[in-house]
Structure formats: structure tokens, C-alpha cells
């Protein structure tokens, strides 16, 4: 379970560039829940993700994961609990190492990993099976360098590596945004299957309204550093892409309504 209590984060405080990226956000994600986070640019959804991952530290509030207060933990320490997949397919893997070497590193995540580790036949067979589950034929290319794979294949492998150790939390940061539509669909299908099979507690940030409408059991919409909408269960299941677009349009219109528009309404609305 992830438990975020009243966290705030301001970048460049006291300067003209001050941005209140997260304003008193609280969020509880129960064990096994799949939360999709959407929001406009600058809504704070990526900052929220970074605060959970430990890429930055909140100014106030606390974050608990798997019963431990991780608020002050560094990013590396949190990696023992959190599996992450980034937007950039090149950032989740080591390009010069082979598929099997990357997998082996992931299998030892959170543990001491020196360069002297050996791949026993049993470990290799196990990892081969897991790679085969992706259905991409990569199990026959285990010794190829990851750098030779396509973006979709790398992202699928990164996803597999992220869940290999069954993390307490899977964080997906727009992990299909850099892929072509076909590869994106494939990675989303894998995501859905892996999360369902392993019953992973998942937080996924996305720009895709289609993914937001069709994935997960809970949908959170962030606006100006706050949670504007929180739809769960039945309400989440009834959400259509059009509803989400309408919500975004409403936010956009509210942002455009300035003081002169309020005066216009005062003189013209009856």
C-alpha cells in the first residue's frame, strides 16, 4: 500500500520562477490497486511521480510504502521497493549489455550486485522463460545487445525487468509516449497482463485519454498541483474518452476565464 499524506512541493521558492508544483496532496493506493494519473502539462502529475520515486523530496508531508516511511529515502534505496518504467526506452536498460545480462541485473535489484556474478544454467532458464512470456521472440536473442532492439522491445523488456522482483509499487511514467501506435498497444497489453497476473500496486502517468479510460481501476486527474477528480470502481468503469476530453476542456476554459471575462459576464449574463 502506498500512503501519501499532505505532501507539498515548491520549486525555486522565493524567486520569480517559483512554482507550486504539488499543493497538499493526499492519496492512498491500496494493495493491488491500479491508479492512472492524468493532467495537463504543468499539472504536477510528473512531480508527484518523482516524489514517490524519490527523485525529489517533498517540502512537507510524508510518503509511506509497504508500511515504511520512505519520505527521506534516496532514489536508490527506494528502488528496492519500486519498479519504474520511464518514457524514454533508452533510460531503463544498459544498451551495451545483452538482454540476459540486463535481466540478471534486474533480478538482483535491491541486492548487492558486483560484476563477478555468474549466470547459472537454472537462472538463465528461468529468465529465458520470463522473456518468452513477452511473445516477441526475444528469448532466442538473449545474448544480443539491448541497444540493437527496437523501442517497443526495449520498453517491454524494461517493464518485465521492473516487475521481475515483484515490487511493492510499479511506477509507469508515460512509458508508451515515445513509441509508435503499434508498439504502444503491445506494451499496454503487456502492462495490463503483468499488473493483473501479479496483482501489482501500480501508479501510471499517461497522456493518452484512451489508456486513461480503459486501464486501471481508479483514475486521478491533476490540475494545478491538486487532485481535481478521483474516480474509482463503478465511476471509473463508466468513464469514456469523451468524458475525459470534456473534463480537460472544462479545465482549459476555467484557465482562460480571467478578470476581464468575469467583468464581461457581470455585464452580459443574466
Amino acid at each position, binding site marked *: 500500500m502506498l500512503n501519501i499524506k499532505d505532501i507539498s512541493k515548491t520549486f525555486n521558492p522565493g524567486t520569480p520562477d517559483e512554482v507550486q508544483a504539488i499543493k497538499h496532496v493526499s492519496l492512498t493506493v491500496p494493495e493491488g490497486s491500479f491508479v492512472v494519473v492524468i493532467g495537463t502539462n504543468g499539472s504536477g502529475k510528473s512531480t508527484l511521480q518523482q516524489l514517490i520515486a524519490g527523485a525529489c523530496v517533498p517540502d512537507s508531508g510524508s510518503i509511506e510504502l509497504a508500511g515504511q516511511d520512505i519520505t527521506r529515502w534516496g532514489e536508490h534505496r527506494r528502488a528496492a521497493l519500486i519498479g519504474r518504467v520511464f518514457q524514454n526506452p533508452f533510460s531503463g536498460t544498459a544498451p551495451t549489455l545483452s538482454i540476459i545480462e540486463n535481466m540478471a541485473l534486474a533480478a538482483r535489484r535491491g541486492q548487492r550486485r558486483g560484476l563477478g556474478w555468474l549466470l547459472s544454467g537454472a537462472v538463465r532458464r528461468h529468465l529465458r522463460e520470463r522473456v518468452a512470456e513477452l511473445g516477441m521472440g526475444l528469448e532466442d536473442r538473449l545474448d544480443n545487445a539491448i541497444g540493437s532492439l527496437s523501442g517497443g522491445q526495449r520498453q517491454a523488456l524494461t517493464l518485465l525487468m521492473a516487475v521481475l522482483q515483484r515490487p511493492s509499487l510499479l511506477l509507469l511514467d508515460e512509458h508508451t509516449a515515445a513509441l509508435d501506435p503499434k508498439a504502444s498497444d503491445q506494451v499496454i497489453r503487456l502492462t495490463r497482463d503483468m499488473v493483473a497476473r501479479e496483482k501489482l500496486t501500480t501508479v501510471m502517468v499517461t497522456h493518452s485519454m484512451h489508456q486513461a479510460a480503459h486501464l486501471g481501476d481508479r483514475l486521478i486527474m491533476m490540475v494545478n498541483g491538486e487532485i481535481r477528480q478521483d474516480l474509482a470502481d463503478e465511476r471509473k468503469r463508466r468513464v469514456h474518452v469523451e*468524458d475525459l476530453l*470534456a473534463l480537460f476542456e*472544462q479545465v*482549459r*476554459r*476555467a484557465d*482562460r*476565464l*480571467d*478578470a*476581464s*471575462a*468575469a*467583468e*464581461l*459576464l*457581470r*455585464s*452580459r*449574463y*443574466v
Partner: protein
Amino acid sequence: MDIAMTTAGDAATVRVSGRLDARNADILSRELDECVRGGWHVLRMNLHDVEYISSAGIRVLIKFAKILQGQGGWLEVLEPSSVVASVLEMTGTMPLFAPRKEQSAATATAGASGCRQIGAMRCTVTASAAGVSMRGRVLGNPAFMARNGSFAPGEVRQLRLGVKAVALGIGAFAADHAGAKGHYGEFLAAGGVAVALPPDSNGQPDFVVSEQRLVPELAVLSALHLEGDFAVQARFESSPQHDGLPGLSDLGAAALALSGASQAVMVALAETSGLVGASLLQSPEGSQDAEYFHFPEARRWFNLTPERVHGRQLVLLVGVFARQPAVPLADHLRPMADSADALRGHVHAAVLSYRALPGGSLALPATLADIFQTQTPLDLLHLINDDRAISGAGDSLFQRGVLWVSPLGEVDMEGGAQ
């Protein structure tokens, strides 16, 4: 395939050459759709150079023949190539496309009454009745919003709207205030149809059409309620002498000119080029000291279109216009533009999917019943001319349409705080 079009009056001659197969039929269908939207009610299809026609091509011809029939026009096939002639012969569809000599309904009425230039619009009166006017009353006082929401439940009025009623304001479909609470939003009613936009409906307007003993009933916070017959029915379109399309202010000026009065009721069905307006995001009752028009609180109360929306749709407009109105009517009207002698008005708009209007003189209740039988309104707006410099979205614009207008006689006060 090539498509070439020439026009004369309300007839368009469309010359098609090449193959009229499924792919090209689709292209032709879109071109003909533009013709119909452009107001051409007679399509003369010259198929002399068509070398092949499939069932897809025939289907397009039949589709537009039916659409135009509904508008008092028709589609005819001229000089069919031997291939086309034999296919139409074999399918028995030839008589459907036979050339005709008579005038279209639109041309016939235009010839009978002549055109009138009113501002930026060309208006053609299609029906009129002498000595007809409407009576009106105001319910509630919209000033409760200016008074920051100090509104008492006792100010709510019930409104039952028959076929001859025209109304607009803030209300909800309900038998009393208890049922309407939380659902008050903009509404309009005309010709036996009422449309309301509950702010809690995620932008989906609701509607009630009079049918047998069913009469739309609303609980209203404030409303203009007019009753009677229309004195004038007219077609309008943009005038060739003017650049740009007619705006809401032009419609208001035309309504006054056509009614010959200083205050008038207008109902219109029009093809839009874009609408500018606002709707409530929250039901405004029961919020003591709500500062509706304060910035930034206004963001929580109003959905204001930042640019023109709902272009190329059909819209049902219900409004009242006046120059120098007296109280109590004046309380319900606002300036249509930012100038001292401005025309004042109050107009609500229910947005519908585009469909071409039939030609000739139209009965409002029957036309609306027909439209609402198959359509759910897409949106409802209180139209506002956003004439702010630079950031303003401008006025609502219309392509063409039908106006029903009547002079508005005395307006009484009923209920509401003074």
C-alpha cells in the same frame, strides 16, 4: 473523377465525369453535402461523362434526392451517359431523378414576398399575420445573481409551457423547488419543446417535448415567459453586399425591424458558424453570498467559451430584444455590444446536430417535433457577445436560417423580489 459545379438561383448544376465507384461516391457525397449546406435545394446532376456507376454511386443519388425532397427541392439527372441511363433504367430509379419544370418551394416563396436587406442580412418573409403580438411576464428577478446569491426558496416559480409559449431563463425540469434543487441551469422553450442544461449533468442538456397530455414543466429562479402567435416568419442569409456572416446582434436588429416594434420576441433555427456564450457550472440557488461574477470565483460558476464553438451545427435560438426597455423587462436584458445606444437582449441557444431545414414556410411546433424526435441537444448556452479587445471570442455567427418574430406588448411582473 472530376466534379464541376455551377450555380444559378437556388439550383446547382453538378457535372461529374469519370467512374462513380464506391471511392468516388464518397467524395461526391461530401461535395453534395456542401451544396445542400450552401442552401442549394435543386441539384442538377449532369452525368454525361460518367463512364461507370456502381450501387454506391446510385445510393448517393438516392440519398440526396430524399434529403432535398424534405426541403422542398429535388435532385435531377441530366444527359445521363448510356452506361448511367441503362443502370438507372435497370434499377428502376430513373423516375426518381426526372428533370422538373416547376420552381422549388424556396424560390416560389422568395418570388412571392421578395427580399429585404436588413443590416448585414438578406431576409425573405415567408409568412406574416397582421395585428399579432405576444404578451409577456417576467418571473423572479435575475438580480439575485448580482446580489451574490441572496435568494429565497419562496422566489421559485413553476412554469408549464404549452405549444404557444416561448420562455428562457434559469430553471430545472421539476414539479417544485425540492425536486429542482441542485439542478438549476439555463433553459429555453418554444413551439412545445423545452431544453434545460442541469449544471450537474456533465454538459448534457435534457429536454421535454409536448406530446398529448405531456407538457414541459420547470421550476424557475428567473425567467422571461412570452405567449402568443408569431407575426412574421422569415428566411435569412448573409447578404452578398456584406463581408462576413450575420452575428447575434444582426439577428436582434432584424427581429426588431421585421416586427416593427421596439421590443420583440425571436425564435430561430439557424445553421451556425460558431457560438460564443456561457453556462452555469453549479446550480446557483442556496449559495448565500456566492460571488458569481468575482474573479477568480467566477471560474467555479461559469463555463465561458474561450473561442467560437459548435460551428456547422443547427441551433435553436430563443430570445427577446429591445431598445430602451422599461422595468421589469429591462432587468432580464443585457447589452448586445459595448456601445451607448446598444441593442439589449437575452438569448439562449440549444445546439443540435446539423440537418438541412426544409424550404418554404415552416410550422415551428411541427418542425421542432420532427427534429427532436431523432436528436438530443448537444449543448445549451446563454449567448454572449464577447467583444473584449484582443482576447474576446467575438459574437456568435450564423450562416442562414429561419426566424419567427413577434412584437412584444406589455410585460408584467410576477413574483420575485423588487
